[in-house]
């Protein structure tokens, strides 16, 4: 074999996969269409956001790189949902689109076991339903034990603007023309998805006096658990808020049939994400709304493009000009890049296992948009897990499968492989039923031991984590010991700080100040302790619920089960079970179309025939 692992694609999934695989000591090759496009951000200039910010924390806790690279290249940082509850707080960074890929490339190049090669993969080498390597467009064969496909939007992608359809990837890059057809040939079902991106505007042509300035937070935050920040809170780049006008609405409605999605093209079958509608979608579907919010976001300190968030469209260029000029402050704006929609092929994610290995070809892994997701963070976390699990497979070890109560990454992968998706899948806090456990603050407590166990998280970071964990424990114990006396109008009460903290209006910092307590701990430790104490009741409740569900997670379903032999299963359930091949009863119960009665029947069958 030429390599142990080949990663196809240099996007956010591919980078994490390649780094994880090579850091675990495996000879890895990353194949990309263009080295200059490694880890670029073809859409919004930000990393994180609600739920997604927590995913970046999780990537970092496991030993991935997205968090640190973001920390080093961000130009604005915000903690979202600060007051809405401990579980929904999440970081979002505006990232410099030039600096981020440059930094990522630097990290990749430092990896001793990793080689980067330019090329276009058009086919796979498959023998006995097992991967042997890849075939490039120039006919060159490269062999490997494992292949990880992270092809993003490059599978047979079409760029749609108005009534024109052009076969191309983002950045006018060459797409992979045959790989998805070849995947179909091997037995994969192919899904056609669509997404879009808004126009970019020349900064100097915008009248910012007509916009509302949105600054970053005046406090330091980092995605990485090293807590090392590289930016200056006083030198953050602002974003700007504006609203669409009556004129915008009028232009869109008058020209609706020119949009690719509304008649401009009559051969659109791809499904776009509901959470990321084009501006024409918003105006048609919410016709009673007078105006829609638009954010102007800087893309980089190295060039002057401004990204118009909320304004993605597939209108023809001349209509885009009119639309942009109808926005306040953008009357004279110069469009640098026009908006477009992009259609691309993906595989039905129910064809992959929770380890991200495909069910159809052994040792072939997939991650990112090819699995039907959308978003840099969603891609990166899958890439990381695919890289880890590819390496573990080579080492003959059990895959790392994160549970729904352990990580958003677990929720994401479980949703994909169990429920599948019809639209590009984006993570939302509402997808996580145990979100009170999946917090920004405890991402390392949840995942760093796992990252260390699989051999990815460095010894240095792990020691740092252990120290923090010890401090948390120590502080909780101290707070149980320290008694304070509180006088109210009615009575005087003495209680431990631990008890007092359960009071919803109390705060640890205030208590320390009021009672002059000699407690010297980092903000990070104090925040963690405060959340654990204050929300103990809720956290315990969710934990109990999760444990109840976990029981079913431990009831394994033998891989050789023949669902045709299980009498009385509803036919829809039987068909879905055959397709998804759930690993355990917990996963089976989450498949849509599998009812509680089917699960009961399955349990009875398993008990009888496998004596479990």
């Amino acid at each position, binding site marked *: 074999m030429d390599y142990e692992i080949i990663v196809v694609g240099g996007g956010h999934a591919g980078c994490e996969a390649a780094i994880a695989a090579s850091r675990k000591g495996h000879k890895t090759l990353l194949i990309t269409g263009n080295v200059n496009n490694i880890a670029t951000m073809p*859409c*919004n200039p930000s990393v994180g956001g*609600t*739920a997604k910010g927590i995913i970046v924390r999780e990537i970092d806790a496991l030993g991935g790189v997205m968090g640190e690279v973001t920390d080093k290249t961000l130009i604005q940082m915000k903690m*979202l*949902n600060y*007051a*809405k*509850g*401990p*579980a*929904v707080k999440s970081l979002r960074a505006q990232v410099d689109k030039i600096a981020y890929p440059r930094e990522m490339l630097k990290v990749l190049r430092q990896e001793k076991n990793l080689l980067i090669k330019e090329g276009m993969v058009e086919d796979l080498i498959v023998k006995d339903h097992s991967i042997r390597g890849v075939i490039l467009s120039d006919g060159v064969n490269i062999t490997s034990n494992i292949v990880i496909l992270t092809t993003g939007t490059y599978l047979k992608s079409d760029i749609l603007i108005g009534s024109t359809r052009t076969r191309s990837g983002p950045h006018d890059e060459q797409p992979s023309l045959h790989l998805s057809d070849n995947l179909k040939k091997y037995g994969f079902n192919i899904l056609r998805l669509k997404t879009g991106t*808004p126009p970019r505007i020349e900064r100097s042509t915008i009248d910012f006096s007509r916009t509302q300035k*949105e600054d970053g937070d005046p406090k330091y935050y980092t995605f990485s658990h090293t807590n090392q920040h590289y930016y200056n809170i006083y030198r953050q780049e602002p974003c700007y*808020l504006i*609203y669409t006008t009556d004129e915008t609405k009028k232009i869109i409605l008058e020209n609706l049939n020119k949009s690719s999605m509304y008649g401009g093209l009559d051969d659109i079958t791809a499904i776009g*994400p*509901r*959470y*990321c*509608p084009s501006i024409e979608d*918003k105006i048609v*579907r*919410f016709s009673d*709304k007078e*105006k*829609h*919010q638009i*954010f102007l976001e800087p893309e980089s300190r190295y060039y002057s493009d401004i990204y118009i*968030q*909320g304004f*993605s469209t597939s209108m023809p260029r001349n209509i885009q000009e009119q639309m942009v000029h109808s926005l306040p402050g953008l009357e004279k704006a110069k469009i640098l890049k026009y908006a477009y929609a992009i259609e691309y092929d993906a595989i039905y994610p129910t064809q992959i296992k929770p380890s991200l290995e495909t069910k159809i070809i052994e040792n072939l892994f997939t991650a990112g948009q090819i699995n039907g997701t959308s978003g840099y963070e969603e891609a990166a976390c899958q890439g990381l897990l695919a890289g880890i699990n590819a390496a573990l497979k080579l080492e003959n070890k059990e895959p790392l499968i994160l549970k729904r109560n352990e990580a958003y990454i677990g929720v994401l992968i479980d949703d994909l492989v169990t429920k599948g998706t019809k639209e590009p899948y984006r993570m*939302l*806090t*509402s*997808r996580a*039923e145990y979100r*009170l456990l999946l917090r920004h603050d405890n991402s390392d407590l949840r995942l760093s031991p796992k990252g260390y166990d699989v051999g990815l998280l460095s010894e240095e970071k792990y020691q740092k984590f252990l120290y923090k964990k010890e401090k948390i424990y120590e502080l909780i114990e101290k707070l149980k010991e320290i008694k304070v006396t509180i006088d109210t109008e009615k009575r005087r009460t003495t209680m431990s700080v631990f008890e007092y903290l359960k009071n*919803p*209006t109390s705060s640890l910092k205030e208590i320390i100040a009021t009672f002059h307590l000699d407690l010297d701990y980092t903000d990070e430790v104090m925040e963690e302790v405060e959340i654990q104490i204050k*929300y103990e009741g*809720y956290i315990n409740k969710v934990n109990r619920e999760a444990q109840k569900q976990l029981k079913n997670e431990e009831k394994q379903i033998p891989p050789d089960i023949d669902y045709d032999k299980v009498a*009385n299963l*509803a036919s829809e359930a039987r068909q879905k079970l055959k397709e998804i091949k759930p690993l355990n009863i917990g996963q089976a119960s989450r498949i*849509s179309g599998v009812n*509680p*009665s*089917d699960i*009961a*029947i399955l349990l*009875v069958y398993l008990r009888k025939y496998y004596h479990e």
Partner: protein
Amino acid sequence: MEDTIVAISTSLGVGAISIIRLSGSEAIKIVNKIFTKNLSQEKSHTVHYGYIKDNKEKIDEVLVTIMKEPKTFTREDVVEINCHGGIATTNKILELILKNGARLAEPGEFTKRAFLNGRIDLLEAEATMDLISSKSEEARKISINTLTGESSRLISILRDELIQIIGNIEVNIDYPEYEDIEQLTNMKILPFIEEFKRKLQEIIDKSEDSKMIKEGITIGIIGRPNVGKSSLLNALIEDEKAIVTNVPGTTRDIVEGSIIIDGVVFNIIDTAGIRQSNDIVERMGIEKSLKIIDSADLVIVILNNNEELSEEELDLLEKVRDKKHLTIINKIDLSSKIDRSKLKDTYIEISVNKNIGLDKIKAAIKKLFNLGELKTSDLTYLSNARSIALLHKALKSIDEALTEIRNNSPIDIVEFNLKEAWNYLGEIIGEVYTDELLDELFARFCLGK
């Protein structure tokens, strides 16, 4: 296949005919062993006349219905034996069947099998159980309403109201910077949640009435020996032409009989006479009688007009003061020796022997239980214990939410409780977590980049 189960599927002693039902692969084989006719070659869904026999002794003249899977209630082989309602005979047949290899069914196990075998869904399963156990016409109507989904509709409406709030909060959380979507704050949702609580409470109240209609009300008659407890009981029952039975329960109290007033079943429990006693057995009986005061829905204390009030009787009257109770003075046709000034409550004067005042008792019962204005006139309310328990859980979650709102806790914590309530309501109608919430999010709000 599962083992074969058996149970008496009619209320023991209530009807003129009892039905014993078996389900499972051995059902036909087992009955064949104790039936005078050979059933092994008979077709499905046929009825057979014959005798149940214990060796050569004929036990009862019966009709046996055999139904082979899959077209049966449980989707297993089912056999039903219609026998003559007597308790002794029915029990004897049941014993015979158990001896021949069947297992006594757990409560609701037939329905559980029907459910597990995919024959019925969860709500149907519950309603069917209720239908089987319904004791009066009124109860039957409620069961049918459940089957037709009336109560599901009621819960769905409540859930829909809640999901709108939850959906809005979720959007606020997942899209924190969309200022054109209303930001729900604790103060904004407080009036809504208070109103929601009121509606939920109303459904609970009506449902509990509904439960009362279905499961009946327990009346304990209590008093000294020979004050006329039994004769009052008999008179009440005689008047309603109800069936009098004597079913000694192992752990339960002795239900002497049931009467129906305005469609509601009243189960009357006889008790041992209360008096000072040194006899151990009698004292145990008296202890038990006193416990009735705690367990019965209504306690009727009978006094004898012809005897002076004893200490025990005064104690008794004190004990029942906090309960629903009626004080009755019997034997007013005899000379009065009771000092009525010692009675703190109102009382009803009757004479069972002369048939004086029985109407007054019934009128008083009606009044005590608001039978005239039971809230369940449209009978669409939930009536089984599981549903009511879930309603209470939902109410508790709503209360928690209100507490968190008043503490000004973060909205995510408030929403946690609302979601919990929403899930409990969902459990009642068998809705498990689906993508409902996400669909709501995307259908109602304009979101995106």
